[in-house]
């Protein structure tokens, strides 16, 4: 479904990604872990072209999205993204946050879009927040709305960029529950996170990134119980 080859990204003279090769199959749940500054988020942001790769190829569903002249907006419709800072639209109520893109991008009728929004709100357990404004919500609620907003575009892939890192500890669980539910529904997911329990429980594969490359990858039980790489071992001993 996603094939990344030779992916590199530099900011000025600083090279953040130094050659990433990776294949993600449909329905896989990839969890990316690693110390801060290792390039995890940049890797994720390159996949939906929020960052323009400096070199390398990304192929999604047979389409090379790194080629010149591809319709970036069309590609992004296939991929939902959830941000660390939620990025809800503060000037509109929850329901409009969710229906804006389906209506404006896909041309869905408003009543249909609102039906979908209500279904998604029920799924993330926030049906009573339909008319609330983002400022009235807790962090956990905001992030669940952000997930619903991304799902409203019916993406094939969901990207999560440290979705629980900005949350108070007591709110992490409610967001992870929604993500676990999404995982069991068969969604293809790539998740950058520091939640090792989530990685153990949900990941079909764990990638350990450091210094701009994937240092080690494998099934969660391998990575967490018998890491082969010295760096992986050192990192895990610090976070677990």
């Amino acid at each position, binding site marked *: 479904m996603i094939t990344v080859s030779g992916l590199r990204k*530099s900011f*000025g*003279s600083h090279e953040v990604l130094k050659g990433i090769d990776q294949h993600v199959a449909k329905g896989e749940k990839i969890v990316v872990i690693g110390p801060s500054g290792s390039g995890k988020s940049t890797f994720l942001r390159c996949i*939906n072209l*929020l960052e323009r790769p*400096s*070199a390398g190829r990304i192929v999604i569903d047979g389409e090379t999205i790194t080629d010149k002249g591809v319709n970036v*907006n*069309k590609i*992004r*419709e296939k*991929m*939902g*993204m959830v*941000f660390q*800072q939620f*990025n*809800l*639209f*503060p*000037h509109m109520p929850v329901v409009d946050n969710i229906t*804006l*893109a389906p209506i*404006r*991008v896909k041309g869905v009728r408003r009543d249909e879009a609102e039906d979908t929004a209500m279904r998604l709100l029920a799924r993330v357990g926030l049906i009573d927040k339909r008319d609330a*404004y983002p*400022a*009235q919500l807790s962090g956990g609620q905001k992030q669940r709305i*952000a997930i619903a*907003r*991304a799902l409203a*575009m019916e993406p094939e892939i969901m990207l999560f960029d440290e979705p629980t890192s900005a949350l108070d500890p007591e709110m992490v669980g409610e967001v992870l529950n929604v993500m676990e539910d999404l995982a069991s529904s068969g969604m293809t997911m790539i998740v950058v996170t520091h939640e090792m329990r989530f990685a153990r429980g949900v990941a079909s594969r764990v990638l350990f990134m450091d210094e701009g490359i994937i240092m080690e990858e494998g099934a969660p039980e391998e990575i967490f119980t018998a890491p082969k790489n010295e760096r992986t071992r050192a990192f895990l001993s610090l976070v677990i």
Partner: protein
Amino acid sequence: MSISEGLYKTFIKDDRYKMFLTGLGSTLILSLLAAVIGLAIGVAVCLMKVSNVPSFTVGKRRVRVVRPLAWLANAYIDVIRGTPAVVQLLIIYFIIFARSNLHSIIIAAIAFGINSGAYVAEIIRAGIFSIDPGQTEAGRSLGMSGARTMRFIVLPQAVKNILPALVNEFVVLIKETAIAGYIGISDLTKAAYSIQSLTYDYLYPLVSLAIIYYIIVKSLAVLMGRLEKNLRKSEVR
């Protein structure tokens, strides 16, 4: 001279209050026209300016690209901000429009509009840039185009920052038109000056003039305060 005598000489004698009224009319018309022109120029220049991509990387080389439109916009803003408004007015009236037979108020409105446009462009740009880039990223990640993201996500939020600053710019503009007398327009300031030359008294015409300007500006400030309050209300409920 007693107060009543001073006021009589300034306003009542020979219907001099009519000079103030005519002057007030000119000042207001000039300010309004200039504000409209300034807003149009400001929006256009701001668009030219944000069309700029300062730099990007090709492989390992960093390439600077300054697009001609952005360059032009920056040059315009730089020149306008770097020279006195009165000099701009004189150049536009006596050189650029020297052979034109447009009404001098129209020429002055163009001059003040060109002046105000530079500040309006910066106000709009600052308003747009004050919005968290995460908002744009969220819009784009949902598959929305840059233009749609601007229209539905960034601009509605930016307006709350832009509107009060625009009203403020309008206030500055009204006060700035006091130099319109330099090109022979009978605005409010010129009216006070003419009355002074008839009465040989500076005190009453000039203090009255200041009070009239103050009242105009203050009423705008009150309006602006109400506007801001309404904008705040729609933000946090």
